[in-house]
């Protein structure tokens, strides 16, 4: 059994069983990361290209390391130095990669839907590493992996996601994944940063930070981009930090063993204080390790077996 679809575009359309399979596989992958010699021959002869149209540190290096640990050949296609700069379309870039015999493309793109467009036009399998405000499935998988590791299961957990819900692809993937696994999701932020009809996805929507913290087993803080302030979505960094910043005082309102997460990179002192970041409740560094394990699992599951449907679905 593997991943049924050709491409992994998001968590909206994959099944609970597939999520479980990925998380279970990631458990055995994590063990490899701690080995002295981190190199398996499993994916020897397979090639993975990362095609990043947006800057990224952890996601890109995490995918590359995951591929290398499993013996695949990984290549990073720097978009700024490639033909993309010369005006090549995404579809044509994909056709070029196909013609080179690539097995998989990991794509990050500022436009929602770009990985789907690529996947529909190439033979290589595609993993979405973040598209616009749409989805970031591997981030949500590593978040769920980290939660499951601590709590044993996701069923029954209450996960509060705080901050810029409107512009977050991490939130959307976590909503689909977590609700499928039986967790309750609370999204919290100022009304200007909550997207229309978000409640229709099955989450609880609150604007008061304290209300969101009260029942949470997991507190996931999102990065606040300061350009949102320039767009008039909140008045100042100072007021944001006061209303929605997680510090020792606000953390004390939550359950004693509540877990603190952040997809990174962090604005220290804005959405999260350094003390909380470094506290025992924080699993932000563990999330990074989980990221490698989950991506190893995905590469293994998607390249080690054939997919069932020939067509990509979103």
């Amino acid at each position, binding site marked *: 059994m593997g991943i049924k679809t050709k491409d992994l575009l998001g968590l909206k359309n994959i099944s609970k069983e597939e999520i479980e399979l990925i998380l279970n596989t990631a458990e055995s992958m994590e063990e490899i990361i701690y080995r002295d010699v981190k190199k398996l021959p499993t994916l020897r002869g397979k090639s993975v290209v990362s095609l990043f149209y947006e800057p990224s540190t952890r996601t890109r290096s995490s995918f590359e390391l995951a591929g290398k640990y499993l013996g695949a050949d990984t290549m990073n296609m720097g978009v700024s130095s490639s033909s993309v700069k010369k005006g090549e379309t995404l579809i044509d870039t994909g056709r070029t990669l196909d013609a080179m015999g690539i097995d998989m493309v990991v794509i990050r793109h500022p*436009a929602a839907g770009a990985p789907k467009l690529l996947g529909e036009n190439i033979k290589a399998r595609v993993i979405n590493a973040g*598209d616009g*405000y749409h989805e970031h499935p591997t981030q949500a998988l590593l978040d769920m992996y980290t939660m499951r590791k601590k709590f044993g299961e996701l069923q029954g957990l209450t996960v509060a996601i705080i901050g810029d819900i409107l512009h977050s*692809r991490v939130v959307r993937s976590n909503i689909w994944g977590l609700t499928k696994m039986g967790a309750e999701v609370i999204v919290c932020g100022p009304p200007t940063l909550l997207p*229309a*009809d978000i409640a229709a*996805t099955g989450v609880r929507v609150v604007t008061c930070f304290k209300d969101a913290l009260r029942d949470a087993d997991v507190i996931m803080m999102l990065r606040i981009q300061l350009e949102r302030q320039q767009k008039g979505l909140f008045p100042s960094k100072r007021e944001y930090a006061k209303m929605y910043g997680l510090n020792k005082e606000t953390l004390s309102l939550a359950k004693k063993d509540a877990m603190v997460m952040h997809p990174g990179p962090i604005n220290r002192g804005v959405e999260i204080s350094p003390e909380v970041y470094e506290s025992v409740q924080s699993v932000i560094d563990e999330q990074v390790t989980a990221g490698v394990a989950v991506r190893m699992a995905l590469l293994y599951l998607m390249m080690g077996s054939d997919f069932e449907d020939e067509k990509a679905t*979103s």
Partner: protein
Amino acid sequence: MKRLLLKNALIIDSVRHREFKGDILIENCKIKKVAEEIEINDREETRTIDLEGKVVTPGMIDMHVHLREPGEENKETIATGTKAAAYGGFTAVACMPNTYPAADNEATIELIKRRAEEAGNCRVLPVGCLTKERQGEIMAEYGFLKDAGVVALSDDGNGVMNSEVMRHCMEYATLYDLPVLSHCEDENLAEGGQIHEGYYSTILGLQGIPAAAEEIMIARDIALAELTGARLHICHISTKGGVELVRRAKEKGLKVTAEAAPHHFSLSDQETASYNTATKVNPPLRSEEHIQAVIAGLKDGTIDVIASDHAPHSREEKEVEYPFAPFGISGVETCLAVSLHYLYHTGKLSLRQLVEKFTTGPASVLGINIAGIEEGSLAHLTVFDPELVKEVNLKNWHSLGQNTPYAGKNLKGWPVMTIVGGKITAESLT
């Protein structure tokens, strides 16, 4: 053939308000005779067409198309766009002035008219710019434009954001009794938006365009119509609130009219979930409640006209990431078919009502005379088969713009013949 004899047709003459079964004889561009039955002696000189089961109406007008010429001939030309219009059942189209150069001067209007005449597919009624270069700042020369032959004024594609400029444009337009066709969109509120703001914009991660962006400008323009006495026509109305505003303006007796595009009463924003850029259009495909409001507006007469907002684009422009694709649906060829399928066959509009939205409706908005189906009038006629089921097939497509969200869909009710000045300009009778 000197003469054309159309037999056994259901004639819906929306101009003369009558409906009957009969024959029409056409000779020398004109309707020679209309009767229950016409017998011809010299069959040699006459082409006789049996139109049993088909409907003949006064020539239909699509009062909102983008023909792209001059300037964007990779998307469409006047020749291809008017051919597509003829195959869509239209004997006339009103073309929007967002060309390059913009149609804010007599020379561009003359060029459009000449190219249209050379093509000979259907009549072209040019719309002139409301402001110079469609910048929303300086009024265009309406007097010269009117002399050159424009039927209306518009900056379509954009609205005029400055209310003072709009006020003066509307005031000045009354001097020439030209209708102002308004593209109602608050550009600040809609900026960066890709699809209707709602559940789908949220889950797809595409920036939303709230219904309020349209409603605000409709409300403003109605207020200005009241202030200035201008003839205001709301283009491509797509929102529940917008329809309600027009309804109230009409009740008040203001000179306000409106049009709806077929995609706004047939497709919801759910279609955008495919990220198919053929669904990217402005105003965007809305949610179900807005669709129902547009249909209700068509039904009760709040919306006078159905027009395609035909906006062809080239493949290379549309085969890109959703946010990078231009807005627009190539719709003139499916406009009547979609309307028959989604309005007539669902029982929302009678055939008579539907025909009015394409004939007397646009004619009265534009203030042009159209002939009824009677002896002596020019033979501009549309023939459609209300029961014909056919797939929208891009292989039999006439527009250069293949950007249609209806591709592959089966529609019931299609135009089968278009007659302009006695000449058949499109025919797909089987």
